[in-house]
């Protein structure tokens, strides 16, 4: 129950063959970014798909830690929540929340944290609290969950955003629930990691290497132009010197995702 990453499903007709859903696309792209990572703090939904696929492809050694307290899950079925009973039975360890948040997360054991958000800004700061004014919001969103802690204590953070619109990629957040390290440092607080390093969207991939840097467009999905991405972004988006084109999901990746990771199409829908 970190900030939710789920939204309404729409087939991304812009960029890939109609047979590939945007869930599949985002999961595949995110999974590739997990190569060489060890410990991942994952919410449910796309992060689950991405980490499970990564385990079968580029990162067999990966350990997923769930906010609920589960380390080293071996689920018999694809979990429907981060606290699903199938994550607990057969897990390597189940920790209390003080241990999970205090020792594992704040203790510095997480390489990559996955987060979603309603709004992200150019520094990778996130809003999951409200649209509008906090005191009397137009939309009350769920709030932080553990997102504040995931951002402050993971070495780096991947954000998955289905919708890439000027409203969600915004110049000024309506509310900063989860600050990146630049905002923390401005207040004299030293975070462990570098904050958001990847934002994976339906249009492409934004990247940011560390403190003091803005998100830059580094890749687009096939058929998407740099101009389209800049148009869909609410600030003057920086663009890498050479923007790559994301390699579409391979047949092997799609087969693993559909047949091994989520045969019941819980998230692939």
């Amino acid at each position: 129950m970190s900030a939710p990453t789920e939204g309404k499903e729409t087939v991304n007709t812009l960029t890939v063959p109609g047979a590939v859903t945007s869930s599949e696309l985002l999961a595949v792209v995110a999974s590739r970014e997990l190569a060489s990572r060890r410990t991942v703090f994952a919410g449910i939904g796309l992060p689950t798909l991405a980490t499970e696929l990564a385990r079968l492809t580029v990162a067999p050694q990966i350990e997923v830690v769930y906010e609920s307290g589960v380390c080293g899950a071996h689920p018999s079925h694809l979990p429907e929540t981060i606290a699903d009973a199938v994550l607990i039975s057969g897990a390597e360890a189940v920790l209390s929340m003080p241990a999970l948040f205090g020792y594992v997360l704040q203790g510095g054991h997480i390489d990559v944290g996955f987060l979603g958000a309603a709004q992200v800004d150019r520094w990778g700061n996130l809003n999951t609290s409200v649209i509008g004014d906090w005191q009397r919001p137009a939309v009350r969103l769920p709030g932080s969950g553990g997102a504040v802690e995931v951002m402050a204590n993971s070495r780096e953070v991947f954000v998955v955003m289905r919708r890439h619109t000027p409203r969600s990629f915004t110049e000024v957040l309506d509310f900063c629930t989860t600050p990146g390290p630049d905002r923390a440092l401005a207040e004299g607080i030293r975070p462990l990691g570098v904050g958001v390093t990847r934002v994976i969207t339906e249009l492409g991939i934004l990247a940011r290497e560390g403190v003091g840097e803005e998100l830059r467009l580094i890749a687009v999905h096939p058929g998407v132009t740099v101009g389209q991405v800049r148009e869909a972004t609410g600030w003057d988006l920086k663009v890498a010197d050479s923007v790559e084109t994301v390699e579409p999901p391979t047949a092997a990746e799609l087969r693993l995702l559909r047949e091994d990771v989520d045969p019941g199409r819980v998230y692939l829908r």
Partner: protein
Amino acid sequence: MERTHTADGAGKVMPMREAVAAFVHDGATVGIEGFTHLIPTAAGHEIIRQGRRDLTVVRMTADIVVDQMIAAGCVSRLVSSFVGNSSAGSLGELRRRIERADPAPLAFEEYSHYGMVCRYLAGAQRLPFYPLRSYGGSDLPGVNGDLRKVTSPYPGPDGEPEQIYVVPPVNPDVTIVHAQRADRLGNTQIWGLTGVQAEAVYAADKAIVVVEEVVDEEVVRSDPNRTLIPAHAVDAVVVCPRGAHPSFAQGYYDRDNAFYRAWSHISADPERLREWLDEWVYGTADHAEYTAKLGEDFCAGLAVGEALSEPVNYGRRL
């Protein structure tokens, strides 16, 4: 914290009605914990039936049962770090209250998960504050004046004085948790996700433990490490099978995911929400009736199979 002791030191088992009447008072601060797992729904329903008013509810994940308690007019203040219907949608009543004060405002204190955990840790340990490496640069301290900073008396990594955020303790008047089992003395065993239940109980003045079953003391004592909440911290043990529905009890029954999805629709319409409360809470005398109304076939659909822990040897002096 002073604890209730029965006259003969014997048992603390009592009916839900009695436990709520004895320990949950109008105007009280009520901790309700269980992180997705073991949510004490039946206790929340009894609070609704008894018409409690002006409660401050403290709960990390304010979910369906909190939405129901708000709709029933029990809650005037909420302290929480996640106000959503899991990943299944929205809490309709909560959103109407916060977004439009409809039909009445709801005071809301917003935290992050670990901020809430640390408030319970401070409460359980009788500390004036608890430090955590969160909130630097967040807008949350701007809307929550209880998020404050302390300067460490030790030099930071760069040799400079280091600042860190702290949260204040929370000490509920009563904490309610659900567990798989306890003995009649109150020694409570939980497995699977154990969340922040022990801390929430130790932070509170009084504690109600709702259990799937009361077991012989010998069962509890065969595995003392499984006792997360010792008897000295418990005031009432309430036996209430399936009392966590629609959440789950590891090894007893599974989560009712369909109801979570349904709640987003039920709660979106105030009329429909009211009808649901009339039918399922006010219309049932207790959780046994609620469960009977769910029906045996329905419950059978949430049944789980067996996956027993391997026993360990505690040893016996020869």
